């Protein structure tokens, strides 16, 4: 496997690829401050990326942010959807992150049991 193979991906990517990424429907922000990392934020981020790749979710983007000041609820993730309130999930692990992708992102039903704040 060579990096050069990325050219094939580029060629296969449809013309609307850049467009669809620029207009990402959902942005998921993972808290990656020291306390988040210590609490397992890396596994959460990896699980989110795995799901996005496996489900081919072209309109979902994952980014990271620093400390949020709610260290006791780490790992935390925020789901930003256009035209909707921001949903903040707390005490997330890899399994919960996968469930959030399936329920919230794909089926549009926020997983209320993990929600710590809506704003």
């Amino acid at each position, binding site marked *: 496997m060579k990096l050069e193979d990325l050219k094939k991906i580029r060629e296969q990517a449809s013309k609307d690829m*850049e467009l669809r990424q620029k207009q990402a429907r959902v942005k998921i922000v993972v808290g990656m401050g*020291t306390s988040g*990392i210590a609490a397992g934020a*890396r596994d959460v981020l990896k699980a989110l990326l795995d799901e996005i*790749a496996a*489900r081919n979710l072209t309109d979902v983007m994952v980014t990271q942010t620093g400390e949020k000041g709610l260290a006791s609820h780490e790992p935390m993730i925020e789901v930003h959807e256009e035209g909707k309130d921001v949903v903040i999930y707390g005490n997330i692990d890899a399994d919960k992150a996968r469930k959030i992708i399936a329920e919230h992102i794909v089926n549009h039903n926020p997983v209320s049991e993990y929600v710590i704040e809506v704003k």
Partner: protein
Amino acid sequence: MMDDICAHITDVVANSVSAGAKKVFIFLEKSTIKNALHLKITDNGKGMDEETAKKVVDPFFSTKTGRKVGLGIPLLKGTAETCGGYFNLKSALGEGTEIDVFFTLDHPDLPPIGNLKDTILILTVSNPEVDFLFNIKNDVINFIFDTEEIKGLLDGVPINSPEVIKFLTNYLDEHLNFI
């Protein structure tokens, strides 16, 4: 708390990104011959003045408002010194920051390196606007992972696209098994 070297790398890189870095260079060498684990992270973020640079190694200092304790750097320094190594931080305001950390490889308190593949993937994909250059080596193999090169090959296709995430996961799985 920070149970492996990769947790420290993730933490330091998060600091670099918060400091506005657009390029981050991560060097990790595990040498049995030199009995050393050597980690160097260099960024072109906003840097720190001398006074601040001295203070970040102090566990009771943080520039973040509302939080008085920044533990990441002091924990890394503590681990290095426990493991018969050293920790150096160099920074220049407006230019960037470099940390240079050395551990004795066979020291019993040295934490495991951790999952380097996942670490490289999550850092590069969740910070698409930052360029990363990873240089990972042992006594035999020298592995380079350069996101500028990757982005060049992708020619406009975002690095955080599902297809690319899948590709990079497999690529790292195949090439980063020596450390």
